[in-house]
């Protein structure tokens, strides 16, 4: 501890250099944060998927509809404790650019998703109101919707019997755990089925809760076997696998993110910091020799340089992480198709570890040079 003033003094000796090194390291970690946020956004909630939920869809593709009559068969299947269904509605609000997920659901659907919370009185109001809707907090904030508002949604897939617009009453607003999409818009399936032209009695997909997550594969194959050779064969998977399917469809985002990150950390962090440390040690050859003459051990000299490097890494990197974190929490990001922008605590921990590791790597070579310095050689050199 008593050597900290020494480290501090060394950092202040070339203020311009210290500031720009910190700035570069800072930017590297702002980018790290940004890239993690993008990756999380593209992961579409895989992290928060319920382990006890399965999704049952049409075997040929998700756009194919399933008969609502499957509900009873699914409910009585061994291992299934709750079943709900949902139908993709599409739709746009005011402008085509304003898109959020709109889904027609059964009355008990929210029981499947305890992470999405609706106040009891609002839920009661929704259950009693056929054209009622439950809207996400993020969308309600964005478009200024309040309980009691009447919302027009332009039809894209399901054309109403009259005109081209559906009207909904905002009965409830749901909020959710961090990382869960709160832009969605839900309404009663019956309202859809009564007012659309055709496809009556058909739903998009089923969501079911199972008694024991470890039996997911058994329950899934039992369900699919039940509907095999029917007119609508099914494919059941865990919610996680279902969402992962979407992520995979977009492509290998993770590989792209990791490559970019590697380029960023190498060029803006490692190279800059290593160069700064090398210069700093080179300039201080004399001083280091004097320290050694005074009895500073080799290990201590090594440590001093490494601490200096780590200090720069942690200060710059930490600030970078903090800035991105607050930018994300403050709602600095939004996009219609990627509703969830979060930085997970895991990302922050990994970020700090990366700072430490890169700080050591960047300081390693100069620190070893400093450690190996022979007093006589060093003092002779001017």
């Amino acid at each position, binding site marked *: 501890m008593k050597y900290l003033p020494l480290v501090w003094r060394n950092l202040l000796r070339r203020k311009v250099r210290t500031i720009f090194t910190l700035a570069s390291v800072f930017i590297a970690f702002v980018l790290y944060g940004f890239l993690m946020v993008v990756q999380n956004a593209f992961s579409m909630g895989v992290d928060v998927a319920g382990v006890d939920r399965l999704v049952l869809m049409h075997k040929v593709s998700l756009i194919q509809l399933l008969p609502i009559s499957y509900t009873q068969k699914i409910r009585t299947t061994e291992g299934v404790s709750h079943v709900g269904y949902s139908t993709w509605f599409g739709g746009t609000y005011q402008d085509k650019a304003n898109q959020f997920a709109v889904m027609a659901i059964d009355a008990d659907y929210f029981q499947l998703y305890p992470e999405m919370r609706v106040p009891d009185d609002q839920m009661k109001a929704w259950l009693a109101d056929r054209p009622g809707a439950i809207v996400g907090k993020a969308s309600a904030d964005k478009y200024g919707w309040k309980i009691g508002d009447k919302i027009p949604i332009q039809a894209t897939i399901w054309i109403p019997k009259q005109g081209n617009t559906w009207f909904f009453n905002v009965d409830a607003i749901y909020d959710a755990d961090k990382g869960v999409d709160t832009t969605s818009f839900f309404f009663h399936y019956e309202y859809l089925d009564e007012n659309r032209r055709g496809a009556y009695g058909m739903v998009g997909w089923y969501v079911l809760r199972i008694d024991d997550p470890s039996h997911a594969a058994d329950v899934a194959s039992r369900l699919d076997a039940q509907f095999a050779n029917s*007119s609508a064969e099914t494919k059941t998977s865990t919610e996680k696998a279902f969402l992962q399917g979407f992520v995979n469809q977009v492509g290998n985002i993770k590989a792209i993110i990791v490559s970019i990150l590697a380029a960023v950390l190498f060029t803006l962090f490692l190279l800059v910091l290593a160069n700064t440390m090398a210069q700093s040690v080179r300039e201080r050859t004399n001083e280091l020799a004097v320290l050694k003459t005074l009895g500073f051990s080799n290990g201590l000299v090594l440590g001093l340089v490494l601490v200096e490097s780590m200090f720069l890494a942690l200060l710059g990197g930490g600030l970078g992480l903090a800035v991105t974190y607050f930018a994300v929490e403050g709602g600095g990001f939004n996009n219609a198709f990627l509703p969830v922008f979060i930085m997970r605590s895991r990302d922050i921990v990994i970020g700090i570890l990366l700072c430490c590791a890169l700080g050591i790597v960047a300081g390693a070579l100069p620190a070893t040079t400093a450690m190996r310095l022979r007093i006589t050689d060093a003092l002779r050199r001017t």
Partner: protein
Amino acid sequence: MFRWLSQTLAVAALSIRTIPQRASSSAVAMIGIAGVVIVFVAVLSIGEGFRAAMAQAGAPDRAVVMRGGADSEMTSGLPGADTDVIKQAPGLLRVGNRPVASAELYVLVDLNKRSTGTPANVPLRGIGAEALEVRNEVKIIEGRLFQFGTNEAIVGRAANRQFSGVNLGSEFMSGNLRLRIVGIFESNGSVGETEIWCDSHLIQGIYERGNSYQSVLAKLDSPAAFDTFKNWLTTNPQLNVQVLRESDFYAQQSQVMSSLIRGIGYTIAVLMGIGAVFGAILTMYTAVSSRTREIATLRALGFNTGSVLISVLAESLALAAVGGLVGGLTAYVAFNGYQTSTMNFQTFSQVAFAFAVTRSLLVQGLTYALAMGLVGGLMPAIKAARLPIATALREL
């Protein structure tokens, strides 16, 4: 004037020639800038490639007719009777008495990506007999066209390359769907090559669509005939349709993805650029301070401040130019033409495309590199020009 120029050139040449003496610190700026250019060009080449695949698909003398309000072919629906009315519209190209238009269906099938083995939504298009006449750029490159009225199908070159189970001669089965692949087609590398095509009646049957379609693709008399065609259809009280020029239709369908990729790409590039500028400033400060005595000597000999300033900037720009060129070339060699596919969020279906490192991207990358060099060199250059001669000579 001439004296000033020759002085400046001499000093600039000196600083550039001595770069190797400051190799390690110069490398920081150069590699930093090269890194920015690689990432910038590579990320934007994804967007560029995607956009190109979509743009290739659209021709100005073709029009897409969908139900009013539908935002893609997938969400559209047109009764068979309506498609017959649409084919009566003026402005539509006719050969003899037959309209050159194809009523089509657009659905998805799950195929596995070859690269990962994971399922992907691949578009299956049901086409009419006139479809290949409408799309005259389409060529069968292997096998033959399917026979209408059978379960034969042809597959796009990119779909064949990206997804397994749709090889020439193979039979593809999913649920009640059973397709025999008899040909492979190409269409200028456009999004159409990610699709599988079969007889529209086959899809109507298997997907229980009755006598309904999702879109009509029409060949127009000429690009100028679009307005006539559109006005007749949109004012026809029998119909509720929207009409888009095919090129506009595909531009619209690629909008979200393109702007998303561009948004992310530019954000990364700007942030990285700021970081690289800091690196460049560091490098140039080091260069200036290591040459303090040299610069002061030049000044004492009568070289003017302007030439010193420009020499530092020239060094910084030279480093940036090398970085920019290396970065651009690396991105070109490593990524140009790389084949991949992604899901278009707007249509929910796969689009195969190749990364496109275009000339304009390379120029943008190099310009950006030079801008970074200029900004990075400015402060150190001013510092060098302002160096008080007496103290500088005494230093060190």
